[in-house]
């Protein structure tokens, strides 16, 4: 059991990473990675949503009528997303970031990772492993988001978390700020990931 639990937590971060291996949740990874701060808040929001949705769906998994299970999952996920959005809007420090992330917080509901993990894991497992699976998948997603945002903010604005890092003479690269570069960067990350982990390469 212990080994299985460890697998549940580590797999989504490494071998089964939702972005680099399953290639889920790409759109938001491109859209909210212009600045580290935004990416970090987005990552935390997704972790909270995947974790809590998986937990709730796992708790009620034996009562859900099979024919409407997707709808019930959707209602649960939507509720979590709205809660996260409302809480971000209410916090004095997070209001500005919520404004900056605008629709992308709401669009977490369409993030395939959330529904995917509920369908694939939470409906067939006990609440605690489901919670961990959700959190770990959110974490795997968040890690990539933060890595992409690190490079995009550094090269696109010359800053990290809003603080000037590169010398003032650096001319920000506008291509880096635009979404296409996030895709290029993501491709590079997948490349590096596959080069390191030989199991991911096709024979």
């Amino acid at each position, binding site marked *: 059991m212990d080994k299985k639990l460890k697998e549940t937590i580590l797999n989504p971060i490494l071998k089964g990473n939702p972005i680099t291996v399953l290639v889920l949740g790409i759109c938001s990874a491109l859209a909210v990675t*212009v600045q580290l701060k935004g990416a970090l808040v987005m990552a935390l929001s997704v972790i909270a949503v995947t974790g809590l949705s998986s937990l709730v769906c796992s708790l009620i998994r*034996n*009562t*859900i*009528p*099979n*024919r*409407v299970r997707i*709808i*019930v999952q959707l*209602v*649960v996920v*939507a*509720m979590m997303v*709205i*809660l996260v959005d*409302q*809480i971000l*809007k*209410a*916090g*004095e420090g997070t*209001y*500005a970031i919520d*404004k900056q992330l*605008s*629709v992308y917080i709401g669009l977490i509901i369409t993030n395939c990772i959330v529904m995917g993990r509920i369908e694939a894991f939470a409906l067939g497992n006990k609440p605690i492993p489901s919670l961990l699976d959700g959190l770990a998948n959110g974490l795997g997603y968040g890690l990539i988001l933060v890595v992409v945002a690190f490079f995009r903010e550094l090269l*696109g604005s010359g800053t990290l978390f809003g603080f000037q890092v590169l010398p003032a003479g650096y001319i920000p690269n*506008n291509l880096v*700020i*635009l979404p296409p570069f996030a895709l290029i960067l993501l491709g590079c990350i997948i490349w590096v990931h596959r080069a390191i982990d030989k199991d991911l390469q096709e024979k």
Partner: protein
Amino acid sequence: MNTNSNVYTVIYTAIVVVIVAAILAFVASKLGPAQDANAKAETLRQMMSAAGVKPTDELYAAKNAEILQLYADNIEEAYTIDLDGEKNGELSVSKDKIELVSKLKPQHKAILAEGDATLPVYIFKGGKAVIPIYGAGLWGPVWGYIAFEPDGHTIAGAFFDHESETPGLGAKIKDEPWFREKFAGKTVEWSETPAFRLEKNAEAAGAPNAIDAITGATMTSKGLNEALNVWFKAYEKHFAAGASEETTINAEEE
């Protein structure tokens, strides 16, 4: 129990929806006041940035409570006008009960429909008048606040914001201080049509009421230009009347 029967399915979904709705309604009502306070402080920051009360960085670093205090300390009066430039309401400026016209979209619609508009004018100490503008950018709304010098046609400062313009391109209207700083010292020529021009190569001709559009952000610039002129038109009677009053007083003195 048969969880696949029709009756069970219908009852189950109904219960789930009711529970979720109840949770959301409860949370929304609990967090509503905090969210409104944040939105109000945000509007005040943008207005005070335009009016030059404090540098924008400091305004954004300040807590909500400090922002309310700062506004109360610096505002002279606030009122609303209709499209004829006549006053049609007062807005409280006391610290505990600051009133704003924060929803600009309905006012924008009223201007376009030439209906009953309540357009705010915020007069800061020293005579600067701040007015909002609102319009459509490329992906979503763009809005902003323009501060006028006491003469009623020279721009003292401006602040622009947007909901979802492209980062690195249209988002420059907010992110790049040089853009809003260009507005200071420009004028709005109330008698001309358009009263202000934010267009490609507009600065080259040297007109006092022209600013270059942002390269790579054609649609955002166009939208902002439209927003500026639609709202300037709506305020034209108010400011043009004020300006002519001043000139007659000056003439009498001479």
